[in-house]
């Protein structure tokens, strides 16, 4: 294959193929010669230095952006993707919604390559919260101490008590729907502000079978509104209509993505959010202090000077930017400790009409396996019921069952009778699991990230344990034709937080050890994966990072 096409691969705007014919090439060249070439424009060099630039507007960037703006700071957020109008532009169609995903190609390596794109990435104002499922369980107390309790992995530099006030603040601010009495974890000081969302078919099947087997379940906590809710800086947000399309974009504003919660709040307090702004360079002075960033906005280079930089681009783009800019690399841990939750799913076919496209996909949860007795692994996992959209389901059936021809079509005709359960469990950091820059370049001319991932003994044992249990639950529920879909979900690690710059990239406040005015806040700073969905904890860290920054600033002044 000709070389020039490597550069075109996997990009929205392919590079124009180079002309191969030597004669035509020389003719075109001669003709082009006398025309005056467009000179590259010098970068605008605005004198207006802002207090903070925030890169990324997802769960890591948006809450702190609002916090900093509310403290009166001059803040600019740079978002690689566009600003959408969900009520007008979001279709109830999986293919049409693919613009929500980070579609620059990533290379998946290792024994258990992790899928990116629609599984694990996002772009647009709001980041991947635009298509997160909005599962918002709190992490439990012992989640932060996996090394203390099991002698493996890494402890967080602080515990649950440190994040509890932020969890509480977020649940109230976002309008999280949840049960009156959640059976697991420390008792909460304030109840969830809204009642839980209704149980769909998959949730009812799981509830019934678990009750018979003596496994506790509960309606899940979810950041979609079960009743209309007043959102500061936004106005009334309407209740969820059970569209079941959370993972392909909420068009009603019922789901607490950042674009309908923290970002309007930030804008109301003067934050400047710039969409379609892809950061390429982080500039520094001789002392190593960051002075500003260079970004491409609608194809034009721009510069923004800043006193402080908050890098919140997610566990792939954050380390990629650091590696590209050779920034904060002293610990040797940038790109290392990549983790992805054990996320195996079990599917079955039921006599009942399930219609898996209705209701929030994961309406029911069980954390009974958070620390299962007599387990042969460290940590634990949670279980969730799952509904699913048809194209996603079909793709999984093809990849895992390898059905084709009439058997594939016959199986898919049972779609309305399909229901699933999945797990999210601890993943330990391993030296073999890491992100690096590949030689292959994308259309921006930047090296593609290559992510190595292999489940090790602890993850494999945990998945075996969970698979056995989930199959037992589905058998009890009356499922036929049960099958498993092994996967890993959520991208975690790659710029971890710790007590020492010898083995961590940022300190307990989210501040880089190496760079005086760099903060990092997203799932990349997690020292361990926790055995719950990460979004709520990322947001809690985001608010905490802003508070720590503001506290330090007050001390200096």
């Amino acid at each position, binding site marked *: 294959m000709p070389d020039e096409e490597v550069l075109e691969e996997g990009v929205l705007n392919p590079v124009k193929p180079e002309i191969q014919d030597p004669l035509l090439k020389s003719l075109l060249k001669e003709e082009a010669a006398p025309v005056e070439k467009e000179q590259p424009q010098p970068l605008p060099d605005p004198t207006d230095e802002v207090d903070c630039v925030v890169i990324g507007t997802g769960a890591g960037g948006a809450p702190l952006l609002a916090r900093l703006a509310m403290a009166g700071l001059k803040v600019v957020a740079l978002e690689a993707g566009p600003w959408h109008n969900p009520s007008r532009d979001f*279709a109830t169609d999986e293919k049409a919604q693919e613009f929500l995903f980070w579609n620059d190609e990533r290379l998946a390596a290792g024994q258990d390559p992790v899928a990116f794109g629609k599984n694990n990435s996002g772009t647009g104002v709001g980041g991947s919260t635009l298509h997160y499922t909005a599962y918002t369980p709190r992490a439990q107390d012992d989640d932060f101490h996996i090394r203390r309790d099991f002698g493996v992995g890494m402890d967080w530099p602080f515990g649950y008590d440190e994040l509890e006030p932020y969890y509480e603040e977020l649940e109230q601010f976002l309008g999280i729907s949840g049960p009156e009495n959640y059976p697991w974890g420390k008792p909460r000081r304030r109840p969830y502000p809204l009642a839980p969302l209704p149980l769909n078919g998959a949730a009812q099947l799981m509830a019934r079978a678990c009750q018979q087997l003596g496994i506790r379940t509960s309606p899940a906590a979810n950041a979609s509104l079960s009743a209309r809710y007043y959102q500061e800086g936004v106005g009334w947000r309407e209740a969820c209509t059970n569209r079941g*399309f959370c993972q392909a974009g909420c068009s009603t504003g019922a789901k607490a993505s950042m674009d309908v919660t923290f970002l309007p709040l930030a804008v109301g307090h003067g934050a400047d959010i710039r969409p379609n702004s892809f950061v390429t360079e982080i500039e520094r002075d001789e002392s190593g202090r960051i002075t500003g960033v260079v970004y491409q906005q609608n194809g034009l280079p721009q510069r923004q000077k800043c006193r402080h930089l908050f890098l919140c681009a997610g566990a792939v783009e954050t380390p990629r930017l650091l590696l590209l800019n050779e920034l904060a690399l002293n610990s040797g841990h940038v790109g290392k400790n990549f983790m992805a939750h054990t996320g195996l799913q079990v599917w079955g076919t039921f006599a009942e009409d399930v*219609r898996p496209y209705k209701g929030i996909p994961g309406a029911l949860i069980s954390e009974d396996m958070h620390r299962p007795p007599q387990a042969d692994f460290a940590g634990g996992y949670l279980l969730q019921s799952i509904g699913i959209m048809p194209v996603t389901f*079909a*793709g999984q059936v093809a990849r895992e069952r390898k059905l084709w021809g009439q058997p594939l079509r016959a199986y898919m005709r049972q*779609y309305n009778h399909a229901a699933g359960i999945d797990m999210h469990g601890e993943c330990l950091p391993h030296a073999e699991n890491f992100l690096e820059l590949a030689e292959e370049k994308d259309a921006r001319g930047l090296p593609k990230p290559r992510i190595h991932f292999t489940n090790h003994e602890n993850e494999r044992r945990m998945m075996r344990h969970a698979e056995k249990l989930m199959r037992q639950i589905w058998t009890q529920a009356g499922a036929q034709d049960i099958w498993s879909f092994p996967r890993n979900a959520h991208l975690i690690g790659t710029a971890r937080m710790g007590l020492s710059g010898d083995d961590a990239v940022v300190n307990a406040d989210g501040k880089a050890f190496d760079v005086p005015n760099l903060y990092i806040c997203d799932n990349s700073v997690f020292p361990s994966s926790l055995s719950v969905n990460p979004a709520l904890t990322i947001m809690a860290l985001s608010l905490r990072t802003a508070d720590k920054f503001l506290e330090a600033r007050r001390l200096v002044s």
Partner: protein
Amino acid sequence: MTYPEGTVHALLQTDLVTEATRTALQARLDAPAHYEPRFFDADTYQVLRAVAARLLPQPERARPIELAPVIDARLAEGRSDGWRYDVLPPDREAYRLGLGGINQAAQKQFQQDFRELNEAQQDAVVEQLAAGKAAGNNWMQLNQGRFFEELLAELTEAYYAHPLAQEEIGYVGMADVPGWTRIGLNELEPREPEEQP
């Protein structure tokens, strides 16, 4: 089990579907019958069509849903779904090698190109490919299992994104303007089609 024909088609004409949703689905229904490939050469494109016809056979349809244009257009425009198995070459090269490899496997097994085989012979070649046992030099450069997975997944997703295929499986999630209130087991809204024996 089947669902009544025309369900999705009828729903698309109603206010139960948003304008954005209707636009996306109607475009697939209205896709022209003839598609001129922009990435593949004419022969390779016909191999892709022939393979698609075995992976998702549609003998009951007078005009089968065309799946090959989805892949050809994506490769021509250089679009990606955001990731690639590191063991595979870039998508364009993978598809060229893979479709060429399918022809090599057909030659090895039946001494003819894939397109010239009858359906049973074509299925025999696909079976070998699915089992990772297809013959041919191209497979020295291309991981057969991962290529087959990608090919099958892309065609399958293209098929079930089509309104007629969604109708076939009884999916009417696109008609969501009023929301869903009857979401429990065996609970149907009037606009959800019932299965026919």
